[in-house]
């Protein structure tokens, strides 16, 4: 694992800001341009530090598979935000040509092999990609991202067993936001109910399990980096539980078009009436937290931080503008057989 120098720390901060600003623009679209985003959209605000800290460990040739809450990964990897926003708006020049939408971003050229919209189902796929990496013997690893809810899926348990058995070069990054849509972890997870971290699940599969503050990008970098080093060394997988707090509701469900958020606020408030929990999470918001830390450490000045923020706003202005102006695909493009069959 490489040491994080100041440039790298600033890069990490910038990526966190970019994800936050992008997600804010997605959220604002529901009010500013009703009906432009269809279906179900899941935001990563609150998970920026975890995403960026994890992806900062990537080496050339490494790959990842994530979930439907997937905007943050390609943003960090350098996929053009214009094409990501255009995809979410269902436009012709969207990253996936309007075929996938918010839940199914893919950028294989940058190692992002894709997502599954079905909870837990990307985990075995990431595990398969790790077998491919093991065969290639080029010291590559795969990061498999999923939520705490997915760890109740058979796909999780089957995959961890196999990966440990075969010593596959994979890091399982569980972004634990403590909610499965509207159900709290301790209501559906035996470990959580017993007051244990979810990383104890690793023990059943004879692999290391660590829990890390997912609001601290450096801590995530170190945990995922150590796990990736271990995987590159041929010692097999690790389960990293990265504890995050999502700052939006589970998703924005638009049905019928124009009707706003399913839950306009986080389920802590709308389901459990626990505004205090949510406000505490806001006080611990990883983005301002990391900004303050970099300023305190003299890595970045307030002016420099603001300049980055301004640049990021301009980038996302341009992304929204591009996506709004980009035409819809021709309807008959839906029947393209070369996309149905390779």
């Amino acid at each position, binding site marked *: 694992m490489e040491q994080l120098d100041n440039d790298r720390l600033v890069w990490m901060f910038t990526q966190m800001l970019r994800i936050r600003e992008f997600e804010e623009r997605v959220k604002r679209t529901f009010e500013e341009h009703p009906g432009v985003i269809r279906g179900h959209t899941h935001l990563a605000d609150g998970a920026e530090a975890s995403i960026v800290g994890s992806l900062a460990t990537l080496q050339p040739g490494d790959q990842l598979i994530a979930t439907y809450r997937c905007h943050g990964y390609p943003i960090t990897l350098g996929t053009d935000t214009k094409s990501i926003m255009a995809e979410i708006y269902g436009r012709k020049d969207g990253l996936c040509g309007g075929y996938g939408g918010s839940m*199914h971003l*893919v950028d*294989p050229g940058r190692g992002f*092999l894709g997502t599954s919209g*079905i909870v837990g189902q990307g985990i*075995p796929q990431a595990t*398969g990609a790790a077998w491919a990496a093991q065969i290639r013997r080029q010291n590559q690893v795969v990061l498999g991202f999923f939520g705490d809810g997915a760890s109740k899926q058979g796909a999780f348990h089957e995959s961890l067993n196999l990966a440990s058995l075969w010593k596959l070069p994979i890091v399982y990054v569980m972004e634990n936001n403590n909610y499965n849509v509207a159900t709290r972890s301790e209501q559906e997870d035996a470990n959580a109910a017993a007051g244990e971290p979810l990383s104890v699940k690793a023990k059943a599969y004879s692999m290391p399990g660590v829990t890390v503050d997912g609001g601290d990008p450096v801590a995530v970098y170190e945990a995922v980096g150590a796990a990736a080093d271990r995987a590159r060394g041929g010692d097999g997988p690790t389960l990293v539980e990265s504890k995050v707090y999502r700052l939006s509701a589970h998703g924005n469900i638009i049905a019928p078009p124009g009707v706003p958020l399913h839950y306009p606020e986080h389920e802590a408030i709308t389901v459990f009436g626990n505004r205090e929990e949510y406000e505490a999470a806001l006080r611990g918001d990883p983005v301002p937290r990391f900004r303050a830390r970099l300023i305190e450490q003299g890595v970045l000045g307030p002016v420099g931080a603001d300049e980055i923020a301004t640049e990021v706003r301009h980038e996302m202005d341009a992304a929204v503008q591009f996506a709004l102006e980009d035409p819809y695909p021709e309807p008959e493009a839906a029947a393209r057989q070369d996309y*149905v*069959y390779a």
Partner: protein
Amino acid sequence: MAREIPYIAAVEEAIFEEMGRDDTVLFYGQDVAPSDDNRFVQAYGRDRVRVSPISETAEIGMAVGLGLAGYRPVVELLMAEFMLVAMNQVVNEAPRLRYMSGGQVKVPVVFKAGYGFTAGWSGQHTGSIYGAFMGFPGLKIALPSTPADAKGLMTTAIRDDNPVCYLINYLLVLEHGDVPEGDYAVPFGEAAIRRSGGDVTIVATGWTVGRALAAAETLAAEGIQAEVIDPRTLNPLDTASILSSVEKTGRLVLVDQGTRHGGASAVIAAEVAEHGFGSLKAPIAQVTALDVTVPYSEPMEAYVLPNEEKIAGSVRQVLGEAPVAA
């Protein structure tokens, strides 16, 4: 050069030979090569040949990931029903990822499984369940009915850049037949005309191809010439060959080991009804398994399945003759 080998050996030969031609082909699954003495392990090593735990979701999900990462896995699933354990990966992941990515990725995987083991395996290991897979664009379905096709269709399945359900009929595994040596591929989407005839078209799949041919012999003795067509793959489906035969014969009997509703014959019947109606001189007849779970007890199992007599009876019926007594 061809020589006579069993159907099951032809399947294995295709995998073995294709692994020799292409380093990215992998073979794994439950009970695949637990011993290092296995010839696949000897030839290709443990990187490419592995025995997996009983974890269908992981096995099939990993195949999808391997495909995304540039490999061509053949997953041994033993029984088609075992795919149902991981139905999401088979029908909702593998065939959809390319389309949803706007053509950016491909998933070249083969799900190798047996089906139709109507030999006393009762309700959960006997299903001819491929009809259920026909509604998932992107997923190809191969149903070899001869040893030669068993080899040729497997070769094609492995080379195909899409997910393929390659389904072995368990009633055919020990049937012997001529199988070409060396590189042998049978293209997908090209039906085989197993027998020519001008009076009636019989379309049959898998194990029922043999039953249809036997029925055709019986009918020939009565002066009825049946054309027997084996689609070989249900997706892609060679509708053109079926339509052109129906144009010639004007009569169609569809035979399938699967159920009637939601099955392969229903799909073919709809295509012919829409595109070949003008050629039909009689209603299309379907000789399928009954819409029940396959029962255990032998006489009941036989009652549920299509057979030579039922096929011949249906042919006589569409030709306007009195049906045979049940």
